[in-house]
Structure formats: structure tokens, C-alpha cells
């Protein structure tokens, strides 16, 4: 079995307290349980690069926390590299790397290079290995200009590059990334994606990438898991999904006067709300420009907009239509 990650029927429930409001503190509290992860089973093989997507609150971060030993599952079997993250945290930590998108793992006040040095000691990396890796990453990620800068003075993109290097210094077998490209500009995103692809290809590092951004998945992952409300609703390759939902866009038109659904060949009217209509079309069947022209020739338009399907759309469609 070459599974490096194995989840079997894993559940995680949280107790959530809501204040009763008013009066004395802590006298009235309602307790509800929330299942952040509700029966997830999945296996990842060595050197796979897997995308883990879902809307906010779907359970992505909770899953990653259970895989990396931060959080204990309420029930179910969690195994990473054959180890139990909860019981064998330290042993597992030596072999994995973790990057959290919005927070940094580096020491805030200290120069970036100091963080690397500290990590060298924490992970007990041999000097040779450390120097080689550091040189490679400095080159590929272009860290040289800000190696001596305190981390708190770095831009988001610089910090993310620093975080990635830091997570890989000890040659982990698995890399867990939680929203690594969030908040970055287009160029920074491209650079990070390129780097991740090369790490996976050249070093055989298994990568689990949770993200909100479909572009990340498209550029990097062959396999994608979609999670919603704590359950995996799709586990398969990207092409299938892409064929069904990827090439579609939605044209939102505001008519001057409310009217009947506009009928155009190959275009589905998804929704009508007074003078506003949502028209779903496939870009390979009809171009946006042609569609606009066609619609404008039939009705009087006040305004229009084009939107691409995002992950919420994909999830919704998967629920509604199945795969």
C-alpha cells in the first residue's frame, strides 16, 4: 500500500456555545454541536498532487488540522505515512511540511535567514542538506533580496515564498498547503504554482492543496476532492469536472422592462428575477460577444455582466445534478 494519507470515516464535531444574552455572564448558554467533518474517507498515494476544494466552512481546514496533528478526530481512522497524527505528532512532524496561507510560520521580528537557521536546528537538518536546499530555494523563489529583512516587513508574496522554503527545508515527504495563494497578485500566484509543480515533479513530494481558488486546481492538480458541509461530494480527476462545468459562463442581463425568458439556441435561462435574467452558456458553443449581440437584438438592455463559475457554483451544480 503506497497510501501516504489515509482517512477512514473521519468525523469531527465541535461544541458551539452561544450566549443567552443579557443579564449575568455565563448563566444562559445554548450548546449545539456542529459537525465540521462528517464522515470523510479518502486515500492519497505518494507523489500525488491533490486539490481539496470547497466553500468556506466546508471542513477543509479542519481536515488538514487532523492530518497534521493539530486536531484530534472525534471518530474515525486517520493515518499519515502510516503514523497516527494525534499520538505520534513529533515523529510525523519530522516528515511533513505545513503552510497556512494567512498566517506565517516564521519568527515575526527576526530576519528571514534567522528563521531558516532556527528551523535547521528544530528539524535537525544536516548542514550539507540545509545549505543545498537553501541555495536551491533562494534561487528558484528569488529570496536573496530579502533574506536579511525582518519577516514583519515583508509583503504577503515575499512571506509566502519564505514560508514555502521554510516548509521544504527538511525535505518533507508530504506538503500540506492551506490556501497558499490567497491574497496574492496574479504574478505571485503564478510563481508559487510553478514552484509547487516543480517540487512535486522533481522531488516526488506528495502535495495536498486546499484552496478556494479554482485556478490553483486547474494549473496544478490532476485530482480534485470537493468537500461541502463536512462531506466529500466529488473525488476524481479534474477533466471530468472541467468538461461539465469548466467551460461555462453566466451572462447576467438587466432588461429595461421585465419580460419572458430569452430564448437563444444552446443557452439556458437559469433564473429570472423581475427585469434581471441569468443566462448560462458554453463558451465553446457561442462566444460571449455573439450572445450579447443576439440578446441585444431581441430586447432592450439596460445593463449586463459576465461571471465565471466559481467554486460555490461548481459545488451547487454537483449537488443539483450529480456527477
Amino acid at each position, binding site marked *: 500500500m503506497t497510501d501516504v494519507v489515509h482517512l477512514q470515516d473521519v468525523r469531527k464535531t*465541535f*461544541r458551539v456555545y452561544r450566549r443567552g444574552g443579557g443579564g449575568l455572564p455565563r448563566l444562559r448558554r445554548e450548546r449545539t454541536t456542529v459537525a465540521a467533518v462528517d464522515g470523510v474517507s479518502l486515500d492519497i498515494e505518494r507523489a500525488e498532487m491533490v486539490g481539496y476544494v470547497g466553500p468556506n466552512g466546508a471542513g477543509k481546514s*479542519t481536515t488538514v*488540522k487532523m492530518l*497534521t*496533528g*493539530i*486536531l*484530534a478526530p472525534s471518530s474515525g481512522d486517520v493515518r499519515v505515512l502510516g503514523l497516527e497524527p*494525534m499520538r505520534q*505528532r*513529533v*515523529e510525523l*512532524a*519530522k516528515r*511533513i511540511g*505545513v503552510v*497556512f496561507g*494567512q*498566517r506565517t*510560520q516564521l*519568527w515575526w*521580528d*527576526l*530576519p528571514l535567514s*534567522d528563521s531558516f*537557521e*532556527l528551523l535547521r*536546528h*528544530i*528539524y*535537525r537538518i544536516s548542514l550539507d542538506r540545509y545549505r543545498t536546499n537553501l541555495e536551491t530555494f533562494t534561487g528558484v523563489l528569488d529570496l536573496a533580496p530579502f533574506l536579511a529583512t*525582518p519577516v514583519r516587513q515583508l509583503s504577503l508574496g515575499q512571506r509566502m515564498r519564505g514560508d514555502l522554503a521554510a516548509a521544504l527545508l527538511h525535505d518533507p515527504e508530504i506538503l500540506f498547503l492551506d490556501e497558499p495563494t490567497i491574497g496574492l497578485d496574479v504574478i505571485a500566484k503564478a510563481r508559487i504554482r510553478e514552484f509547487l509543480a516543480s517540487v512535486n515533479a522533481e522531488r516526488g513530494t506528495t502535495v495536498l492543496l486546499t484552496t478556494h481558488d479554482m485556478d490553483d486546481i486547474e494549473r496544478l492538480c490532476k485530482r480534485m476532492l470537493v468537500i461541502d458541509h463536512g462531506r466529500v461530494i466529488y473525488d476524481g480527476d479534474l477533466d471530468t469536472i472541467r468538461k461539465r462545468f469548466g467551460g461555462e459562463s453566466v451572462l447576467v442581463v438587466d432588461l429595461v422592462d421585465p419580460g419572458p425568458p430569452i430564448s437563444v439556441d444552446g443557452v439556458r435561462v437559469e433564473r429570472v428575477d423581475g427585469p434581471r435574467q441569468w443566462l448560462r452558456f458554453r463558451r465553446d458553443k457561442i462566444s460571449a460577444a455573439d450572445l450579447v449581440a443576439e440578446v441585444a437584438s431581441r430586447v432592450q438592455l439596460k445593463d449586463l455582466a459576465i461571471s465565471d463559475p466559481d467554486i460555490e457554483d461548481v459545488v451547487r451544480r454537483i449537488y443539483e445534478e450529480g456527477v
Partner: protein
Amino acid sequence: MASRAAIYGRLAGSRLRAQYQYRFSFVLQIVGAFALSFLDFIEVLVIFHHLPALGGWSLGEVAFLYGSSYVVFRFADMTMGALDRLPVLIRMGTLDQVLTRPLGSLWQVLTTDIGVRHVGGMVQGGIVFWFALTRVHIHWTALRVAVFVSMLIGGAVIFCAIWVATNAIAFWTMDAREVANSVTYGGNYLTNYPLHIFGVWLRRLLAYVIPLAFVNYFPSLYVLDKRSPIGSPVLRFVSPLVAAGAVVAAGAIWKTAVRHYRSSGS
């Protein structure tokens, strides 16, 4: 163990270098801490303006208590001070990152900050202590020296243990920061004065639960050769044992706290 020392040393060095960059502010902080801590001693001086002895202890003897407590307290503040920011670390997700690294969580948290400025306070404590030594007559024997040294070491360890145990509260509730403060800073204040002036319930608490009585009071009884209305003579020599026990207890509390965090999230 060696690598932990290496990490801590490295971190202390890095921090010093980083703070040295802002030399003026850094020096100001040390001087500030030094001056600040004198203010604490003014209370003792003013009290003794009105009486020759408090609870049967002279100014020199109280200064002895004050100095020995303050030095070890500020030492603990310097090394354990990072724990004061634990709620912030939890909220920022730094603690999650800590748990993904192959090193004990407590150790990693301690390395996030070292309060070098507290050296100023330690120096002040030392000055008060020297002042005390000029006013009391200690009959130094080998045993007295041993008890004195173990008092300082034990006191530092006990304060560190208290720091860890009380700040672990942050894993359960963010609101109880002040409770932790009241034990650490309150504890320092308490140990400025001879234990027997406090109410019975407080004395028992400080001997059996939060062992502040062993930071300086009981060992001082032997070093200063004073009689006390409370406690058997044996208690004057057990500081090292109490310190060891405190370490074990604090470690257990921390582990429990982290286990709670890992099962219930944040």
C-alpha cells in the same frame, strides 16, 4: 536536549541582535525596567519609616526577602514572558504551526520571546539584596551557603513553574489572563513580606497549593537564623524538592491544556 539548548541560544542571540538594532529604545527599556522596579521598593521603605520591624522582621531582613524574590521573579519573567502572549498566539494561529513541528509545544512558545529588558529589574533586585546584606548579620556556614543557593535556584524554578501553570489557562478561556497575572505578580508581591503576617488560609494556600512560601520565606528562616510561628524546621530545607514537584505539576497542567486544545479546537 543539546539541540534544545542550541535552539534557545540561537533564538536569544537573534533576539538580542534584532533588539540591538534599536539600541536607544532597547537601552531605554532596560533603564526603564530598572527604575520601575525601584518604585516597588519605595513601599517597603515608607512602611519602615513608621516602625522598626514588620511581623518581627527588620528592614534589612524584609529587604533580604524582597531582593531574593525580585531577582528570581524577573528571571522567570524574562524566560517565561512569552507565555503572556499565549492568547495572541492562539488567536493568530501560531500555535497550530507550533504543533506541526517536531518539538515540544511549550518549548517553542517560550522561544517566541525573551524579555531581555528584565535584566534591569534583576539588577535592581540585586542592589536591594546587597543593601539587605549590609544590614543583616548572617553567620555563613557551608550549609547556609547551600541553602541560600538552592533558595535562589529553587525560587526561580518555582516561579517559572507558576508562570507555565497559570498561563495555561489561556487554552481554556481567553478572558482569564488577569487571573494568571494576579498569581504571578501577586505572588511576587506576597514574597516581599514574611509569610506569617498573612491569614491562615492564605499561608496554607502558599505552602501547599501555589508553593510561593518556598521561594524565599522558609529557606530565609534558616539563612537569617530566625524563628517563625509557623512551619516545622524541616520546611526550611525542602525548596529543591518543592521546585521539582512544581515542575512536574506545571508540565502536567501544560500537557492537559494542550490536549484540551487539540481535541476541541479554538
